């Protein structure tokens, strides 16, 4: 409960900090770059995100999906209808131009996540650095979040599992989704399994708050759109080449 209260307080804290910042140094932006120590808590200094260039994504390739499953110990049980899916390949065809889009879709790590809004227990939460996760210790498996997610990003575990990987606990009766390879981020690695696996370099991982990061530079140069942008969820995952 302590942590859930903290989460609520953090919102008020950020609001007041914004006002203080305005009065002390108008027009001056302080940028400190320093990697998180292992025993340090994550802060809102970072906002982790992904940029996906759909023009570089191969139609038949599922390397990112396989790498994700390998990384997080997701194994086939009863087939695609009920198995967990942290990333899936989506193919869309534009009605007028007949342009075919290929892209991987995973949890979009929204700044305003609907899954967090609807969760009755507080299990669905957003970390200070923008990663949306499920605290499976308090998840009751009601699946409200699965209904609320506009990206169909979450999966429910129906079967008893065994041999879960140490960094990726998963279990029957709880909901799960892409963690943005949070265990790697906490180790200080600047990549995810899917990003690393993409043979075409279609995915870029990085800190959206750091103007010098590769992802921010690419976004500044070519832009990047949110899926279902009208919902104004301010997603951490952005796409290029989806406007045709």
């Amino acid at each position, binding site marked *: 409960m*302590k*942590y859930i209260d*903290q*989460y609520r307080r953090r919102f008020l804290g950020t609001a007041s900090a914004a006002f203080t910042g305005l009065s002390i140094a108008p027009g001056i932006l302080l940028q400190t770059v320093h990697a*998180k120590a*292992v*025993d*340090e*808590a*994550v802060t809102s200094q970072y906002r982790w995100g992904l940029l996906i260039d759909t023009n570089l994504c191969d139609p038949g390739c599922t390397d990112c999906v396989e790498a994700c499953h*390998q990384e997080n*110990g997701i*194994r086939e049980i009863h087939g695609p209808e009920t198995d967990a899916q942290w990333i899936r390949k989506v193919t869309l065809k534009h009605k007028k131009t007949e342009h075919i889009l290929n892209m991987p879709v995973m949890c979009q790590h929204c700044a305003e996540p609907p899954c967090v809004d609807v969760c009755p227990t507080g299990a669905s*939460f957003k*970390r*200070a*650095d923008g990663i949306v*996760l499920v*605290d*499976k*210790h308090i998840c009751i498996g009601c699946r409200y979040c699965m209904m609320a997610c506009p990206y169909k990003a979450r999966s429910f575990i129906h079967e*008893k*599992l*065994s*041999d*879960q*990987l*140490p*960094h990726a*606990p*998963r*279990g*029957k*009766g*709880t909901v799960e989704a892409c963690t943005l390879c*949070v*265990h790697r*981020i*906490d*180790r200080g690695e600047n990549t995810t399994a899917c990003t690393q696996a993409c043979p075409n370099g279609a995915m870029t991982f990085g800190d959206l708050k750091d103007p010098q990061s590769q992802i921010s530079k690419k976004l500044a140069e070519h832009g990047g759109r949110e899926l279902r942008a009208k919902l104004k969820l301010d997603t951490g995952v952005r796409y290029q080449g989806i406007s045709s």
Partner: protein
Amino acid sequence: MRFASFLFLLWVIPLHAGELTGPDRDANGNIVPTPKGEACVEPAEVMRREHMNLLLHKRDQTMYDGIRTKRASLNECIDCHVTPDANGKTARADDETFFCSSCHIAASVSIDCFDCHGDRPLDMIKNSGLQK
């Protein structure tokens, strides 16, 4: 009839006596598998009383704050206390020879940690061919 039960006890006691002592048993006959490391993060008396509080505290720190230090981490407990036997196999979470279950079964306190957490070290999972 009394003689028959005496004979029965004579037969039963030596049969099970070996199970109540031995290298993996403590003075009360509970199974305590040999750990890999030299010393635990706290003395045994503290761990017996406080392990659940240490784990709960660490659980929230890891989950919400991304603090993945080794002390009081369940993964470290598993790495040290779940060790392979002569055949290279480890006890599984439901077995009474499994480190946590050896006490929890005796105390009749059920735990559901291993519904979600793996019950053996990463090396063992890799050796089983389930993971590259």
